[in-house]
């Protein structure tokens, strides 16, 4: 198995899926000649032609809106949003059409489009290059959401998203695009949506997380290794959510910290806590503590580390849960 960076794994998935299925096409700003500002789409235009890897006008609602029409013409569009915070102009098309059109045809037409984008902070970037917008997506009916944390999952979840008959938004942790290489299965590799992954086994407390926060959680678990045995549950996909894995882990540990980079109010950690408060209330031996971004604009990068959930914050939360 080749070792790939996360962004290379994304690129690999796109190559494999475009090769496999002629109806897969890429659209986005700078995805063609340049191969994307992160080079996630590098080589695709050369290999598959300018009609299947399309440099679009600078218009995100236009990208997602035309993708809806492309689906109706039999295409399977994969739209790149250049950055998280630049995906918001497309929310209207997403909420009012992408998530509703299949329903509107009473299930007789499919809208198998994928929207993928780099997300998250920690990269010392100018304003609005750091958002974690998963709530806007996961709250939207008809839309599924996946967030990989490793190169292998980045490939496998993106492949699953592209093959899925429903619209899927894939958020890729840009902080980890180029941090570590990892073995990634060659050729076709699909990680099914809705299956969480135990990133670290443990018995005393469950850290629930996804994307870049998996790495923070793993580091915190390691820091705490002498004190407490933490299980790290990487959700991988938020919708569908692997409730079975979540409930099983909590049934075992009875204690939970949920880690999320996005602002707290109505973030996905709230959903996790709510599922537990409803379905695992009698398993819980302590409060469900959320460690999240704060309900303020993502800050100037010189102090972004104070905003991002960090190992010390997760460690502190774990200790608070244990002490409760």
């Amino acid at each position: 198995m080749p070792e790939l960076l996360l962004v290379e794994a994304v690129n690999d998935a796109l190559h494999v899926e475009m090769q496999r299925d002629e109806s897969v096409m890429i659209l986005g700003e700078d995805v063609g000649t340049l191969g994307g500002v992160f080079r996630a789409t590098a080589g695709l235009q050369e290999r598959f032609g300018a009609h299947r890897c399309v440099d679009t006008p600078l218009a995100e609602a236009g990208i997602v809106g035309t993708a809806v029409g492309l689906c109706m013409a039999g295409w399977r569009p994969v739209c790149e949003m250049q950055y998280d915070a630049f995906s918001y102009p497309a929310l209207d098309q997403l909420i009012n059409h992408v998530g509703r059109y299949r329903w509107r045809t009473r299930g007789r037409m499919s809208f198998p489009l994928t929207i993928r984008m780099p997300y998250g902070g920690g990269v010392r970037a100018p304003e609005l290059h750091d958002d974690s917008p998963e709530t806007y997506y996961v709250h939207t009916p008809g839309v599924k959401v996946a967030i990989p944390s490793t190169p292998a999952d980045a490939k496998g979840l993106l492949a699953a998203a592209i093959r899925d008959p429903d619209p899927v938004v894939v958020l890729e942790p840009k902080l980890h695009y180029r941090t570590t290489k990892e073995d990634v299965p060659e050729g076709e590799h699909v990680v099914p949506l809705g299956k969480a992954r135990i990133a670290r086994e443990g018995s005393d407390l469950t850290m629930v997380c996804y994307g870049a926060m998996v790495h923070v959680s793993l580091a915190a678990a390691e820091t705490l290794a002498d004190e407490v045995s933490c299980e790290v549950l990487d959700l991988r996909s938020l919708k569908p959510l692997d409730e079975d894995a979540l409930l099983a882990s909590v049934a075992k540990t009875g204690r939970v910290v949920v880690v999320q980079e996005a602002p707290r109010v109505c973030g996905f950690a709230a959903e996790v806590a709510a599922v537990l408060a409803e379905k695992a209330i009698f398993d819980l031996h302590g409060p469900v503590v959320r460690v999240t971004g704060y309900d303020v604009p993502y800050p100037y990068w010189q102090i972004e580390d104070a905003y991002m959930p960090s190992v010390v914050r997760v460690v502190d939360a774990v200790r608070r849960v244990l002490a409760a």
Partner: protein
Amino acid sequence: MSRVLPAEGDLRRVIGDGDAIPDREVEGLGADELLQLYRNLVLLRTYDERSVVYHRQGRIGTYAIFWNHEAMQAGSVFALDDRDWIFPAYRESAIGLLRGMPVSTVLSWWRGHPAGWWNPKDYNLASICVPIATQIPHAVGFAWGSRLNREDTVALTLFGDGATSEGAFHEGATFAGVMKAPVILLCNNNQWAISTPLSKQTAAPTLADKAIGYGIPGVRVDGCDVLAVYEATRDAVLRARAGDGPTFIEAVSYRAAPHATADDPSLYIDPQRVEEQRENECIGRFERYLKRLGVLGDEQAAAVKAEALELMRAGISAAEAEPPADPSLVFEHAYADPPPPLLADRDELLRILGDA
């Protein structure tokens, strides 16, 4: 590539006024075609007028009236082949009738009954689009996608004057120009967006003047002249099929009815102007033209009307005979592959409704 010129200022017309303005004829339209066009117009008009009545009778919900806009719908669709796709706004809710959609389907939509939601592929007709202008990128994407498939299918999308202010119009039109999508952007300039007159909507001299900003030819037609709309659309279809890309058509008309059944235009509109428009409405104009041509007689006109009314009677009966919708449909069709909690939700709801 030839330079795109600014849009035409004058309204294209075919139908005269039986007096100073002479009638023209449109190549390729014989008596049969003209009569078919007439039947289409009357079908739409009858649908519209009966719907207002059904609404008053409480048999359908809020309804968006399209009285005096039939010419633009029938004229443009007549220029399409059946394989071409239509992307309508809510104002064109009944445009499917021109493609053989049952009256009961459209009525069911306005009755909020699931039988009103069709398979677009059955009629090459996209779903009714409620949020203004958002169907435009869909039509453009579809047309672009067909071109990529090396098909010569064309897409027609209809939208209002107000729609041209939305970002979705702009982005759709931009893509259309760049991708040379075989799409026809047909703007129903009825000069009102609910209570907002065109003068508060845009400072553009004409809506067709917007076309050049997308590198798209723009033409203006009298939107109440069914033949002028037909002719302009036919030209646009030819361009599109030839690979020459999109056309923007501004069809100028006037909203001579309330925006929808819930609207009270007396609060904002000039009743005099409405009266004038109603007297010169689009179907009467075509009828008089046909009579001048000797293609239509009174008896035939009456028969066409009777046929349409009969269709409506049958349609509303069929719509009302639909079995009540099953509440479990709430959970259907949103996903091909629904997340598991949805199934649990359905079971729980059915249990509760069973209990209740």
